[in-house]
């Protein structure tokens, strides 16, 4: 199952919402967490709607609008989103109001907008899109679930255009709570534990794609495959699963021109380093979380990155892990991510 990426809209901690540029300027990692560079929403959303939209809703709706325009599509045939935590700001607003006011005088708007499928729903209302509309909410494989559903949709309905998105936001309060709970401590097998910074840097973003089975000169790249797995026994199992995944796509590790890793700093951890050293010595080795931070749907950002690399045949220096000669042309990119060795994901992108 595979699909072409026809259009993209990406709002991230880098200046990415303008599709004509590609990481010309790099914005450094911020502490304690990275926040998005946001466009002027008034250019994308009518004031009467904008006024009560929470931040991630604005981000998601705008990224989808940019994406649809980029793809030249007005009405998609399905809207499929993935989010790890949904609309945090609205959830917090309603919850704290409820707790602080003893359940009195509560405002409906933030409750309504705390529902996880709000972004998908809002896009549907704006476009008057009566079609399939799903939201997956499962930790750091939420976006991967949405990719799989999109690919299945296209297998079932090959003439469709699917609007696929991955989004998550970070808030001060959520950071405070999770930081206190030790969520952002680097794991035991992180190489950098004990050296310099011991904390993972969270991030956020909203990345949308239009997928289609139709070839076109303006397509970015193809999603050629996706796979997720849970709590592997050891690195050998991970390596076996990666090999099996590539085999099922008629590829081997030698076909992977560039490996894009979800490690949280340049030192990596035992798992990322093991995979990199054992399987991808010959591939261009890159990482991406210094650009967008750690969040549940960061692989959506990574997909934006990979799609642009394949279309432009350019690898931004900032993502390279070491000096390596570029292979011409770049044909296959594998994104490999895991968080705390719980959910692992593989996303394969190929040139058109």
């Amino acid at each position, binding site marked *: 199952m595979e699909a072409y990426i026809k259009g993209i809209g990406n709002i991230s901690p880098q200046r990415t919402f303008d599709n004509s540029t590609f990481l010309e300027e790099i914005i450094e990692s911020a502490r304690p967490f990275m926040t998005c560079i946001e466009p002027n929403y008034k250019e994308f959303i009518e004031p009467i709607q904008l*006024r*009560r939209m929470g931040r991630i809703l604005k981000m998601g709706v705008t990224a989808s609008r940019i994406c649809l325009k980029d793809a030249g599509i007005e009405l998609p045939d399905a809207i499929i989103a993935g989010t790890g935590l949904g609309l945090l700001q609205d959830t917090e607003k309603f919850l704290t109001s409820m707790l602080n006011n003893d359940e009195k*005088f509560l405002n409906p*708007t933030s409750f*309504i907008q705390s529902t996880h499928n709000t972004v998908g729903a809002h896009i549907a209302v704006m476009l008057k899109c009566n079609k399939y509309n799903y939201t997956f909410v499962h930790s750091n494989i939420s976006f991967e679930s949405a990719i799989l559903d999109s690919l299945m949709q296209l297998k079932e309905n090959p003439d469709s255009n699917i609007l696929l998105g991955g989004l998550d936001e970070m808030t001060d309060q959520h950071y405070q709570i999770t930081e206190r709970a030790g969520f952002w401590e680097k794991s035991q097998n992180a190489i950098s534990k004990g050296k310099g910074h011991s904390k993972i840097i969270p991030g956020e973003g909203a990345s949308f794609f239009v997928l289609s089975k139709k070839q076109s000169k303006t397509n970015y790249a193809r999603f050629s495959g996706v796979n997720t797995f849970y709590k592997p026994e050891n690195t050998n199992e991970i390596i076996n699963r990666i090999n099996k995944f590539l085999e099922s796509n008629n590829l081997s590790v030698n076909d992977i021109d560039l490996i894009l890793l979800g490690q949280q700093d340049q030192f990596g951890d035992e798992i990322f380093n093991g995979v990199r050293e054992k399987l991808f010595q010959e591939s261009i080795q890159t990482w991406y979380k210094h650009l967008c931070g750690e969040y549940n749907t960061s692989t959506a950002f990574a997909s934006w990155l990979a799609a642009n690399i394949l279309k432009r045949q350019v690898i931004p220096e900032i993502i390279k892990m070491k000096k390596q000669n570029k292979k011409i042309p770049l044909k296959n990119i594998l994104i490999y991510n895991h968080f705390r060795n719980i959910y692992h994901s593989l996303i394969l992108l190929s040139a058109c």
Partner: protein
Amino acid sequence: MAELTEKLKKEIIEVLNLEDLETDDIENNAPLFGDGLGLDSIDALELIVLLEKNYGIKLEDPKEGKNVFYSVQAMADYIEKNQKN
């Protein structure tokens, strides 16, 4: 009454996040819903909360809202009639 309508306009702008509006932009007798300010059913619910929180008036039946929230003037009249002092 003029004080109340002015206060109401400020509160409506705040509660409904009508950021680009000033109190001068809202006429006392202009319809708030539909073609007027373009408010919708969620805004009506927010106004019900406003009524209770700021004026102590509980609107049990949301259907009554159509009349009570017709315009700023209608709201002011309702408040004057029903406010518990």
